């Protein structure tokens, strides 16, 4: 996947947009999830206080993360958990593989983990001859289709039940043309049950890791993380280091926010706290950096490390809803993904911070109060300055910066712009103008706001003076 050439977001989105009906359906489905989030949030009197508290806890984590990590490792080890550290994706994959190799095991059952997507673990293990089965239903579906997930919480949100039915018919031998979600889910249940019962190694993600106690929490609705971990001899849990929180009691805050923000549920069905391995079994934690410490050092972007991966910013984003998760060509899509991705690779992901209307809806729903749309705006400036944006965009942005920074130029530019649009419309309504590509150009006002304001303030002042 990583070797393929990436298609820029706007191009991929344009392709997605060709099927109008599907786009509308995608848009509405996600808006439905967003609406559930609102209803759920409004039922909690303390909602805003909760968000503020979560945000403050996360700020505390960011400024103490070194010490918390040291504390976490010591406590986890005391609990009998084996702790590993991975500087990047490659090392993460090697560590996971080395644990498999040590036990001479060639099969793994995995529960949803966006980090392993970020590291392309499945591809890596496949090359080593290890079979990985993703057990979250959505992940399982996209895995069978050889696609990446398109959403961090709802991996198969881009698919219709007809698509799933086709896929299951092909891979699981289900009845052709049976679209019933109940029937399809039952088929996956039967097939995956056998997987759970035969795997010696289970891998899960981590939602929260507690420094004070050395335990970690995994949240699922399906119970797949638990089925895997409690039946396997070896449980490997992989986490980005930002998943750390200081104390166990802080879980109360985050568990109240997470599922409500994600799907509108009051809490996920299972919020499992893993503190010690079962007697005679092994539990590993792989703590991963992979660019996070760099992001921590970027003052403007470090707050993105507060993210608890609820997906609310995606569900609310008008661009995500109408362009689909795959158009973001990054493990984490949507607004937050567009902040995290340029940190991983600036040139490859320079298009993503531009995939936003900057409407601020993401910032408004974020349970940990990340200034998402501000960061997207800041990334644009960094990317233009460092020359990572396409020529046309760079020139346009630089021109705009000059115009906006200089009142006289702004004034003249406005005047001549209005003149051109009114008298020679062909000069702007053409293919060269990227803005016109998707839109009707507005009617040209007779005067600018500034002219209108000057005149009116003069008039109203005169009126006031008369009285």
């Amino acid at each position, binding site marked *: 996947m990583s070797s393929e050439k990436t298609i820029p977001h706007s191009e991929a989105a344009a392709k997605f947009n060709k099927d109008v009906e599907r786009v509308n359906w995608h848009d509405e489905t996600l808006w439905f*999830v967003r609406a559930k989030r609102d209803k759920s949030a409004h039922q*909690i*009197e*303390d909602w805003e206080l909760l968000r503020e*508290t979560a945000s*403050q*806890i996360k700020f*505390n984590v*960011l*400024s103490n*993360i070194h010490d918390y990590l040291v504390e976490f490792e010591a406590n986890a080890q005391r*609990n009998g958990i084996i702790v590993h*550290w991975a*500087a990047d994706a490659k090392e993460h994959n090697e560590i996971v593989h080395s644990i498999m190799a040590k036990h001479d095991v060639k099969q793994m059952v995995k529960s949803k983990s966006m980090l392993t997507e970020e590291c392309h673990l499945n591809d890596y293990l496949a090359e080593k001859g290890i079979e990985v089965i993703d057990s*979250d*239903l959505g992940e399982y*579906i996209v895995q069978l289709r050889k696609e990446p997930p398109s959403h961090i919480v*709802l991996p*198969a949100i881009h*698919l219709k039940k007809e698509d*799933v039915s086709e896929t299951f018919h092909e891979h699981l031998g289900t009845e052709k043309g049976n679209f019933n*979600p*109940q029937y399809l*889910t*039952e088929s996956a*249940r039967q097939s*995956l049950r056998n997987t*759970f019962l035969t795997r010696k190694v289970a891998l899960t993600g981590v939602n929260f890791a507690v420094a004070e106690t050395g335990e970690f929490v995994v949240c699922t*609705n*399906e*119970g*797949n993380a*638990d*089925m895997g*971990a*409690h*039946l396997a001899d070896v449980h490997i849990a992989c986490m980005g*280091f930002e998943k750390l929180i*200081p104390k*166990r009691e802080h*879980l*109360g*805050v985050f*568990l*109240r926010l997470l599922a409500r923000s994600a799907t509108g549920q*009051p*809490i*996920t*069905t*299972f*919020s*499992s706290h893993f*503190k010690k*391995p079962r007697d005679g079994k092994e539990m590993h934690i792989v*703590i991963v*950096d992979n660019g996070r*410490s760099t992001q*921590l*050092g970027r*003052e403007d972007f470090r707050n993105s490390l507060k993210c608890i991966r609820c997906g609310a910013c995606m569900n609310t984003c008008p661009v995500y809803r109408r362009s689909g998760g795959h158009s973001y060509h990054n493990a984490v899509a949507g607004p937050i993904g567009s902040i995290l991705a340029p940190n991983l690779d600036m040139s490859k992901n320079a298009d993503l911070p531009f995939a936003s209307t900057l409407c601020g809806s993401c910032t408004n729903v974020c349970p940990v109060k990340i200034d998402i749309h501000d960061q997207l705006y800041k990334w644009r400036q960094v990317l233009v300055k460092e020359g990572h944006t396409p020529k046309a965009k760079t020139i346009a942005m630089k021109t705009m910066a000059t115009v906006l920074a200089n009142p006289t130029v702004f004034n003249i530019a406005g005047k001549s712009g209005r003149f051109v649009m009114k008298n020679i419309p062909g000069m702007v309504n053409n293919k060269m103008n990227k803005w016109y590509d998707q839109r009707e150009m507005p009617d040209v006002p007779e005067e600018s706001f500034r002219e209108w304001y000057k005149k009116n303030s003069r008039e109203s002042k005169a009126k006031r003076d008369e009285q």
Partner: protein
Amino acid sequence: MSSKGEILKRIKLNQPDLVSELPNLNLLGSEQFDVLETYKTVLKGIGGDPVEVANYDEIINYIKSNYNLEKRLITTLPELSEIASLDWKTVDPHSLQDVELTVIKAHFGVAENSGLWVTDDILGQRVAPFIAQYLAIIVHKKDLVPTMQQAYQRIGNMEYGFGTFIAGPSKTADIEQSLVLGAHGARGLIVFLLD
């Protein structure tokens, strides 16, 4: 091979100089509502069934009339030995694959999300509530707390190897957002609310 040192060094260098204080959690969880009613409403809302009972006999009768006793029923509660077996705690967890119903007890429940807190000292086996086709959990009405704030106060620094909040039956909505109960874990959850 030590990436640990490298990572920690970079983090120390890059983390903000100014240390943000931890917020006061005591301002949270002061919402007022009827705890039992809320518990029942929320549980129903997420696909579970609340059943109020006065004693263990009522639980036994309920299970007798709602589950097939020919199948494998397991429990950790000696009070239920008449209908469910108790001798499975040390067996290979894989052998629990044919269990129809697991009956366990929770330490306490949380009204705002209907979650029930269980840990491995009352679970018998960690996989027991997940691998069974159906699950029943008993909780005393007096052991219901309003929100997660009180829940963690109650957990405090309780010692456990594994603990989980269980809220409703296993479910998924991964196929076109249609809710389906019984993804991998229990297809149904009965919560016996004991006087």
